[in-house]
């Protein structure tokens, strides 16, 4: 086995309300939707209209810039609505599901005989291509690239993250099939990162290069793992895929059906019963988390984890790349002399507060910014939470200055938002680092196109 890669930098934020390891199967949701804005840089062109009957696997729209990339319905039913926003921008394509689900039957491909291009075409047609994410930039992979390698992480370390071992129980066959598919897509290696102590669950998988990691968040971020296994250099492309999505891909290659069923964690201090549920991607949030499942109603629901997830309303839909929904209290209240108080119920990495005295205490952190935005003042703090050979503040400043050369030199190819989320969390200057980084990445993409 490979050596253990120990990451010393990082932080596990202890939050209340981690999901109990009990799985409930939820009834079908009233609506499912595909939300184009969940996919970065995609301009949707519709393939269906309201009233059309669709099956699970029927394309709903394609990307105007990459017409081969299809986005399919996760369920069978009737297209109920196409909700539009300003300038008729398509916000969501809503499908009302049938009672009995029907799956579009695709031909089952023989991987041993199929060429790389044929495998790519099959994935594109199935609508599962958007699961393939490329680095740099964290956008949907471009099928014309030959990735140097493909990386899969088998664990998550973010606050309240789902225990993927629990989620993936019994999925090894599908994952193995998925890995076989990935091996067709790259001339390089397929890397699988394991968490120290959890290696056994994935013992039977073969055809992958296994790496064992130890350390706090963001050790589970695939970007951090790539940096420590085989960093991305200028001009190189690697692909990544979420491991549960990989299982979905593998299942598709075994059955010829697009089955977007997933197990996810619903977690957070405001939930009465944090647990695991099995759902289908795109399910209405209301079917998963509603007024009755929360202790109080002034909450924020997050598609993903509290550090890098996207906030969603109860009328929203579950996003495709995430394995959890987090529910945390909104912090829209004033706090008298908060900055001078001991604040025993709040968490800080700084010893100016006292949470370091209680390392095992769990917190119900709210969404208050806890201060006002200031210029960068402190130094040496941010590097401690990024286990990469990158100077986050210099990178952020290069982006603010829109200095493309500097961004490139300082490592923008190697990071996406989630990798800087901890730096943003600990920042006393409250700078929106994730947003700035995404703006920088957008500028880079524009520059390179």
């Amino acid at each position, binding site marked *: 086995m490979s050596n253990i890669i120990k990451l010393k930098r990082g932080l596990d934020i202890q939050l209340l309300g981690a999901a109990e390891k009990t799985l409930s199967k939820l009834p079908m949701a009233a609506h499912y939707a595909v939300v184009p804005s969940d996919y970065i840089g995609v301009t949707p062109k519709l393939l269906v209209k309201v009233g059309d009957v669709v099956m699970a696997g029927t394309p709903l729209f394609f990307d105007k810039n990459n017409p081969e990339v299809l986005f399919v319905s996760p369920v069978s039913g009737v297209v109920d609505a196409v909700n539009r926003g300003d300038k008729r921008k398509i916000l969501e394509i809503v499908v009302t599901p049938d009672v009995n689900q029907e799956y579009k039957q695709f031909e089952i491909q023989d991987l041993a005989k199929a060429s790389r291009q044929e495998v790519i075409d099959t994935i594109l047609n199935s609508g599962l291509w958007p699961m393939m994410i490329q680095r740099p930039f964290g956008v949907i992979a471009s099928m014309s690239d030959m990735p140097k390698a493909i990386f899969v992480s088998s664990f998550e370390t973010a606050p309240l993250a789902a225990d993927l071992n629990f989620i993936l129980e019994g999925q090894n066959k599908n994952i193995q099939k998925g890995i076989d598919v990935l091996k067709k897509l790259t001339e390089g290696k397929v890397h699988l990162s394991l968490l120290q102590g959890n290696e056994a669950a994935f013992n039977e998988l073969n055809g992958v290069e296994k790496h064992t990691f130890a350390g706090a968040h963001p050790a589970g971020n695939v970007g951090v793992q790539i940096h420590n296994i085989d960093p991305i250099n200028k001009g190189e492309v690697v692909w990544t895929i979420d491991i549960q999505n990989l299982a979905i891909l593998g299942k598709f290659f075994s059955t010829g059906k697009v089955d977007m069923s997933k197990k996810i964690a619903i977690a957070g201090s405001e939930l009465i019963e944090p647990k695991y549920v099995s759902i289908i991607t795109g399910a209405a949030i209301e079917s998963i988390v509603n007024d009755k499942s929360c202790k109080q109603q002034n909450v924020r629901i997050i598609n993903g984890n509290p550090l890098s997830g996207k906030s969603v309303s109860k009328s929203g839909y579950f996003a495709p790349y995430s394995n959890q929904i987090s529910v945390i209290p909104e912090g829209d209240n004033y706090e*008298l002399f908060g900055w001078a108080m001991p604040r025993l119920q709040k968490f800080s990495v700084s010893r100016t*507060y006292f949470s370091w005295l209680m390392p095992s205490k769990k917190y119900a952190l709210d969404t*208050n910014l*806890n*201060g*006002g935005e200031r210029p960068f003042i402190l*130094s040496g703090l941010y590097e401690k939470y990024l286990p990469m050979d990158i100077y986050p503040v210099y990178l952020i400043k290069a982006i603010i200055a829109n200095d493309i050369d500097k961004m490139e030199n300082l490592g923008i190819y190697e990071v996406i938002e989630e990798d800087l989320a901890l730096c943003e969390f600990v920042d*006393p200057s409250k700078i929106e680092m994730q947003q700035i980084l995404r703006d920088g990445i957008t500028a880079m993409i524009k520059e390179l196109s």
Partner: protein
Amino acid sequence: MKELRNFVDKIKPNFEKGGKFSKLHSTFDAFETFLFVPKTVTNKGAHIRDCIDMKRVMIVVVVALMPALLFGMYNVGLQHFRAFGDVAAASDILGCFWFGLLKVLPIIIVSYVVGLGIEFAFAQSRGHELSEGFLVSGMLIPLVMPVDVPLWMVAVSTAFAVIIGKEVFGGSGMNIFNPALLARAFVFFAYTPFISGEKVWVADITSSKGEGLVDGFSGATPLTAISEAATAGAKSFDWGTLPMDSLIGTIPGSIGETSFIAIMIGAAILLYTGVASWKIMLSVFAGGYLMGVLFNLIGGDVYMDMPAYYHLLLGGFAFGAVFMATDPVTSAQTCVGKYIYGFLIGAIAVLTRVVNPGYPEGMMLSILLLNALAPLIDHYVVEANIRRRNRRVKIAK
């Protein structure tokens, strides 16, 4: 508490756009956020945030300055009564403190009023929130001034430091030089007689024109005395109780810089809370000490032969190392850079003291010099990172 919040909410519209006092928006905002942490919630990026903010950081530094300030007040009284031969008063600790309090408080008030006034004006004109940086600068400025400095000079130097040192660069976080040191440097070069020599370090000597002083009194700081002895070619220097006195701080000097122990209590607070960089602090002391040892090896005059660790105790060395060199904005930002930056500050400070007889205190200029060089040091450290990244490409190919 509710009443207070209701009151603030009631008057708030007056200060918002279109309100009667909208020109005072930043000022109102500063006071409001001082009273209440705002209800702003995260809307982009991380949904949860560490509960630390700049107010907390800055207030910790101010707290860390308290031991030096309180001892400084006591020492102002002590030096005064000693100089005028009032033995009974000099042994009355509370009396000394009270005397010092009355002398020092006006300087602090002038520094804060002038500095914050300018900060409020700039914040308003830029439409920014008021930055907390001056909470610390406003306390540092009095502590690096001699007690007999005229108040108008404090006002002028503070204004210079805030406007030229900070605001022209864009405010806190953007400045190149430490504002408090800039204030001190301004007084030093603009009004040299007032801040050097033997008269200014003890309260009331200037105004009394030397009458009533005890026989043989010299108000010189130990550094000046040693420097003069060395220049005069003295064979030996009577150290007497100087090491112990400077450890405790009962020597003439700027208000806050004399007591090594009080400064170290502050250092402990800063290091314990992690607000200041131990790397910088340690390397400043290491740089100063090693430079002192080097001079010991060379030898030649009393200053060069002075035990190396005296350098760390005397003058503004410890104060500069703990509170000035570690200013996160003007110091080096990178880990390796901090070691280089700190080491050079210590070494150059001692070099200036010993080699330049006309300039007994090297700490201030040494830090200002390295403030100017810090971006250069960081540049090379970051360049090394870029080279590592580029080399990877070549190996890959």
